[in-house]
Each structure stands twice: as structure tokens, then as C-alpha cells.
């Protein structure tokens, strides 16, 4: 039988060594540590009773960990959770992701809104990318951002919670720094504020947790997750390469990642504000930087008409089916 180091708190077999704490933690104390880190972000964002949080449930490990942690903390904070899954139409990957999101939200008693892109606008992400002659990942990101914001506006959510973990944040930050896109660094805080009627604020509860911690937590919670990687993900994508290099760096200088995240969480508002104007898209009414929003522009060009308004109506119908319209705040 394996020899497992004992938990530094209670002496039970450890499931992880948590470097920022310099402690071995068992199942119970690891879950407690993870939830405490999530709770700290919720406290900073002043989440409280009556708030509705829309949780992006992709079906992967991070969103499963996020949904489990937020479900655990419901009682202490008094918020309401709604999960949303976007079926992007990427073959088996999307089918398994959707199933994972459905199983997990049902298990945790969280209502799930499924936005099937083909049902909503008639095409999948790969089809939209092909027609518009744009890279699939770029179209996918744009579609996801739009749908999440539209669903949050329609459901009157206070925040959109996403499963971005600390490693994701570091990769985006370094990528932004390399291209000297300093305005993007300002968007990389643990939460952001809403813009009334146009955009709902983001909440990143896994900000101070690593990708590995997220997977360990999801496994300990017995979460149903899709472990596959999107077939469109380029293994040489800059974010993937940065993550690998940062993990090497972490091994040589333990603590470097958490230190960077702590500093970014304190200093992100010091970076320049985006210079672009904020306006309502004349086609769908949601946020744009002047003129039509990117989603309406993309769908007008590719499909002959802007689809933002149609997506909003589709989501409204889904919320009505679940009895979730006209509540929240």
C-alpha cells in the first residue's frame, strides 16, 4: 500500500500539498481551503442575499469545480444560482460537454439553461467560423461572451461567474503584457462591475486557485466532467505555451504564480481604462463600442441578418420555460 503524507491539520491521509499554505491537506481540509478561497472573492465582490449569479457551465473541470463550490457556499451567502450551458455544436466534444453540465447541475439542484446555438441562430460555431472565414477560437470566444451577457441581462443576474482559474488569468495577463495591450490587464481582476442594461459584471471565484487544484477539487466532489480537449484547440496557442512555462517556473520558484495573482488582484485597476466608448448596439440593445456590437456585425456578415435580438428572445423563452423570468436582481 502507498505511503501517503498525513494532513498537517488532522493527520488523515493527504490529497494535496498546498504550497501557499505549506501544508498537506486531507480531503475535508482541502475542500475547506478551496471553498475559503472562493468565499474570499465573493466577499470582495460583495455578493449577498437576493443576488442572482449566472454560472457558465461548460462541462469541464473548472466550471464543475466552480458550480460545486458556489453550491456549497449558497447557504452562507444567500445568493441564487442559475447555470448556463452553450451547446456550440462541436461534434462529440459538445455532446459530452452538454451531458456533463446537465448531470452536474441536476446533481447540485441548480436550474440549467441550455443555449443550443444551432437552435438559436441556425448554425454551429464551426459553421459560423467557416462562413465568416474567421478562426474558430475567435468566433467561439465572441459567441460565448455575447450569449453569457445576453443571458445575464435577460435573467437579471448580478454577476456572470466563470471558471477561469489562476493559471488562465496569468496566461491572459502575460499575453496582454507581451503585446503591451495594457487596457486588457485592467479587465483581469477577480470581478468587474456591471454597466446598467448593457453588460453584467464578471465574477472569477477561482482566481486564486490553480488549474490543478480545480481538477483535484472536482474529483473529490465526484463531479461529472468532460475531460476531453476541444478538437479546435491549438496546442501551440500562446496561452497554452505560457501555462507550461509558468508551471516550469513554479517548480523552480515555488509561490511565483500565487504572488503574481495576488499582485494583479491588488493592482489591476492601476492599468489604463479602455479608451473605447460604450454604447447600446442599435440591433440588439446590448453593449457595443459604437455602432453594431461584434456579435450582430459577425452574424449580419455571415448569415445576412444580425442575430443578437433573436438570441435574446430565445434565451427569454428558455428562462420562461424554467420559471426564471421576472425574478433576480
Amino acid at each position, binding site marked *: 500500500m*502507498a*505511503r501517503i503524507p498525513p494532513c498537517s491539520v488532522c493527520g488523515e491521509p493527504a490529497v494535496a500539498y498546498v504550497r501557499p499554505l505549506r501544508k*498537506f491537506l486531507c480531503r475535508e481540509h482541502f475542500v475547506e481551503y478551496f471553498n475559503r478561497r472562493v468565499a474570499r472573492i465573493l466577499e470582495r465582490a460583495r455578493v449577498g442575499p437576493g443576488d442572482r449569479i449566472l454560472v457558465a457551465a461548460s462541462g469541464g473541470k473548472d466550471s464543475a469545480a466552480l458550480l460545486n463550490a458556489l453550491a456549497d457556499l449558497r447557504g452562507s451567502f444567500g445568493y441564487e444560482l442559475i447555470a448556463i450551458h452553450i451547446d456550440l455544436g462541436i461534434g462529440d466534444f459538445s455532446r459530452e460537454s452538454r451531458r456533463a453540465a446537465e448531470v452536474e447541475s441536476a446533481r447540485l439542484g441548480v436550474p440549467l439553461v441550455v443555449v443550443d446555438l444551432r437552435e438559436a441562430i441556425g448554425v454551429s460555431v464551426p459553421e459560423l467560423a467557416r462562413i465568416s472565414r474567421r478562426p474558430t477560437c475567435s468566433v467561439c470566444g465572441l459567441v460565448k461572451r455575447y450569449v453569457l451577457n445576453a443571458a445575464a441581462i435577460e435573467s437579471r443576474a448580478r454577476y456572470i461567474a466563470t471558471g477561469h482559474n489562476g493559471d488562465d488569468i496569468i496566461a491572459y495577463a502575460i499575453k496582454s503584457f507581451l503585446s503591451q495591450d495594457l487596457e486588457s490587464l485592467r479587465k483581469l481582476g477577480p470581478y468587474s462591475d456591471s454597466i446598467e442594461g448593457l453588460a453584467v459584471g464578471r465574477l472569477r471565484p477561482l482566481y486564486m486557485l490553480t488549474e490543478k487544484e480545480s*481538477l483535484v477539487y472536482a*474529483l473529490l466532489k465526484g463531479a461529472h466532467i*468532460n475531460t476531453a*480537449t476541444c478538437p479546435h484547440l491549438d496546442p501551440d496557442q500562446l496561452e497554452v505555451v505560457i501555462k507550461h512555462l509558468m508551471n516550469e517556473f513554479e517548480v523552480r520558484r515555488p509561490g511565483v504564480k500565487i504572488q503574481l495573482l495576488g499582485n494583479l488582484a491588488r493592482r489591476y485597476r492601476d492599468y489604463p481604462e479602455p479608451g473605447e466608448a460604450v454604447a447600446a448596439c442599435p440591433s440588439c440593445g446590448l453593449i457595443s463600442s459604437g455602432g453594431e456590437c461584434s456579435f450582430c456585425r459577425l452574424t449580419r456578415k455571415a448569415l445576412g441578418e444580425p442575430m443578437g435580438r433573436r438570441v435574446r428572445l430565445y434565451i427569454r423563452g428558455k428562462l420562461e420555460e424554467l420559471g426564471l423570468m421576472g425574478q433576480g436582481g
Partner: protein
Amino acid sequence: MARVVIEPEGRVIEVRGPLRVGELLASLGLSYEEAVVLINGTPVPEQAVIEGEDEVRVLRVRSSG
């Protein structure tokens, strides 16, 4: 000998215990930040020691995309 399954490839290798999890990962070219190791179904820290007859799973930590 302990049986080690490396996922997602499903590759199977056998290792002779006692062997530290951190050493196993290094032999696979992985750092401790890039994989979760389960011994007999439970995650373990990289300081854990694998013995003969253990069932080991190595899960690579990666983004879904």
C-alpha cells in the same frame, strides 16, 4: 509492480515501488503542476510513495479549450 495508467492517452506502464510520485511525474516529463496522480482512486500529493500492487492513474491537467 504497480500499474500506472496515463490519461487521456490510456497508456499503461508498470513501475517498481517504492517510488515517489514526484519522481514518476519527472520520468514522464511532467511537473507536479501539470498532473494529478490518483493512487487506488484517491488524489495524492507528489510526496506520496507508490508501492507494489498500487493502482495508479496519472491525469494530465489541461484546459478543455
